[in-house]
């Protein structure tokens, strides 16, 4: 239904009946701006979804705004529901802006935004309103927000390459799509660069194994635990996680304790290393807070405009909670001297080093970037294959 008919009754009933709402009402003098968030996984998954959830909390404490959220928004956990329907639940609870946090919700976010023109929509990791994008649509009340995790992955790859004694790096890939391809490739570029930079004697091997989904489903996906174990026991002494929950950490911890020195790079969530600090080289993480804050404020004060935001890190202060869209936290397992080299690398990136510069060939050898050519955003975003030198499938067919 259209919020025009929906929202008012929901609004009026919300404070009356819902305990949290009334509390919020008493806390904030003015009626707080309510924004909703749809999380694809559990809000406390220690990964992708939790990063979004905590960004929401960040916004709550920066502004008086109040967050309502619904997690596990996927057909398996919410049988018979669609994200747009669930978004309406949030609107019914008073949300004036809804964040869709997964690529899987792209269509739903479009549908919802069109059906509810007076509700603001943020589609994280999507590209619908990117004028230069392949799937551009004009949706005034929708905004795309994504962090340039490419840099995070480059740093991750670098840390991996520096710390690997065998020069063999494993990458725990989820399912194959544009996003996962470009991130995996970035990790490879970072690894390659630092491998040469540190003049490693080993020769670099970078292998991706796709498990088939963002997390394990028995009988259908390859078990990431087995994949990690297989990597570690076949000489890949560093495994970079590209999936939602970094199961490579506990596995590395176990195998190390059992005498197979194994290292891991986590993903998505700033505190992901805490599961097994002593084997963690670090974690590239999303810091959605700043961009969400800006977007939500613009929605609140009417300065909203539909746009595609692809924010990079704050190079002056990589892990600044208030300014940097992505960051990298070093882990305890990263040796001092490697940490030093890594900082140099970060500095170079800050200084304008762009690893997405030619010559770069695709996995099948076709040239992608000519010598000296710098990749356009589209070329990075829509990377058609893995890169030459990487092992693993480029597409599921």
């Amino acid at each position: 239904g259209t919020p025009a008919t929906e929202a008012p009754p929901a609004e009026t009933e919300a404070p009356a009946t819902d305990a949290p709402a009334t509390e919020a009402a008493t806390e904030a003098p003015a009626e707080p701006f309510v924004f909703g968030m749809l999380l694809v996984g559990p809000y406390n998954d220690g990964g992708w979804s939790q990063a979004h959830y905590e960004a929401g909390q960040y916004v709550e404490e920066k502004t008086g705004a109040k967050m309502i959220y619904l997690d596990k928004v996927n057909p398996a956990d919410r049988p018979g529901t669609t994200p747009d329907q669930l978004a309406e639940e949030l609107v019914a609870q008073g949300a004036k802006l809804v964040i869709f946090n997964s690529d899987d919700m792209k269509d739903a976010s479009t549908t919802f935004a069109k059906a509810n023109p007076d509700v603001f929509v943020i589609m994280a990791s999507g590209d619908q309103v990117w004028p230069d994008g392949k799937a551009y649509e004009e949706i005034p009340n929708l905004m795309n927000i994504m962090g340039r995790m490419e840099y995070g992955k480059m740093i991750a790859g670098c840390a991996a390459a520096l710390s690997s004694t065998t020069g063999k790096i494993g990458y725990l890939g989820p399912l194959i799509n544009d996003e996962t391809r470009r991130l995996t490739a970035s990790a490879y570029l970072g690894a390659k660069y630092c491998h040469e930079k540190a003049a490693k004697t080993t020769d670099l091997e970078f292998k991706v194994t796709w498990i088939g989904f963002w997390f394990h489903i028995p009988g259908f996906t390859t078990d990431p635990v087995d994949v990690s174990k297989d990597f570690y026991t076949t000489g890949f002494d560093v495994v970079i996680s590209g999936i939602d929950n970094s199961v490579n950490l506990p596995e590395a911890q176990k195998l190390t304790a059992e005498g197979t020195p194994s290292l891991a790079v986590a993903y998505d969530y700033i505190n992901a290393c805490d599961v097994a600090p002593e084997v963690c080289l670090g974690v590239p993480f999303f810091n959605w807070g700043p961009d969400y804050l800006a977007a939500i404020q613009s929605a609140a004060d009417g300065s909203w405009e539909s746009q595609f935001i692809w924010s990079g890190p704050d190079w002056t202060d990589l892990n600044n909670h208030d300014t940097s869209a992505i960051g990298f936290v070093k882990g305890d397992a990263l040796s001092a001297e490697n940490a030093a080299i890594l900082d140099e690398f970060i500095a170079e990136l800050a200084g304008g080093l762009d690893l997405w510069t030619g010559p770069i060939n695709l996995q099948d050898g076709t040239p992608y970037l000519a010598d000296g050519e710098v990749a356009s955003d589209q070329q990075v975003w829509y990377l058609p294959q893995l890169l030459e030198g990487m092992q693993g499938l480029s597409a599921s067919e």
Partner: protein
Amino acid sequence: MTQETILIGLAGILAASAPIVFAVLGETLSERAGVINLSMNGTILLSAMGGFAVAYTTNNIVLGFLAGMLIGALVALIVAFASITLNQSQVAVGFVLALTCRDLSYFLGNPYMGVPGPRLQAIPIPVLSDIPILGALFFRQDAITYTSFMAIILTWVWIYRTRPGLMLQGIGEKPAAAYIRGANVNLMRYVYTVIGGALIGLAGPAFSLASRAGWMGTISGLDGFGWIALSITIFGGWNPARAAFGAYLFGFLQWLGLVLQPVLTQVPSQVLQVAPFPLMILTLLLVNIGNAEWVERTLAAMPESTRKFFAKLLRAMRASPPAALGVPFERD
């Protein structure tokens, strides 16, 4: 791949299959006594969650495993009570519990999502672990994997080599006959269902405290193992050794799917993962076809000699369930 890496891979399969082995052994015991415990899928999840929660809060891994067994035993007790005492359909009750326990584990497990908890480490056994191939395969595992090896041997010996085990076979085969041989059939059914349940309950912590450490709710990747274990039980023809072999075979096929991924680029990884199931159905067909009555009819029509031959062949493949599986026993 070097022999070394293959060995490690196989050793990994033995470890990763430990939970399924427990589940399969438990179910085998229970069904041997004539009670189908269909609740496995839920039981495993609930005991995985419960076991982890206990181990985490008490920071005592052993208590965690015990908690898992307790949960499994309690669920099994409900199945036993409903089917033996209240004469309700074992399948119905078991199925309901399978779904309920799953949701319960998600509902109650929320606080333990993703918290780092205790985990078993491998304990190489001094001398044995140095035996060339066998050492790497069997003697560099963790405690629960060793336990799974023992469990296989123990259940096998129990069923086929001990006095009570012999009686167990009888109870599942023809309760009345076991009864006149002095067995308290329904009591024994209770006992074995609960013990079997405890074994199934051990599968949960074997995941959440060893091979797949931690609790991640819906994304723990444990939902489904119970149903898989159920098929493996049938595949095992109610023989612990054969059932355990089934569990390892399943693990092996999964592992194969993993190592073949780079080779079979045409096939999405998901398909390789599911390969065991058609296989399972096929074997079910082979072991069961002897029980189909049209086979008997066609056999009856055949000439003496051929009939004898086919009858032998079928008998060889056939694994008929305990005759009294799911049949309540009432004296009068």
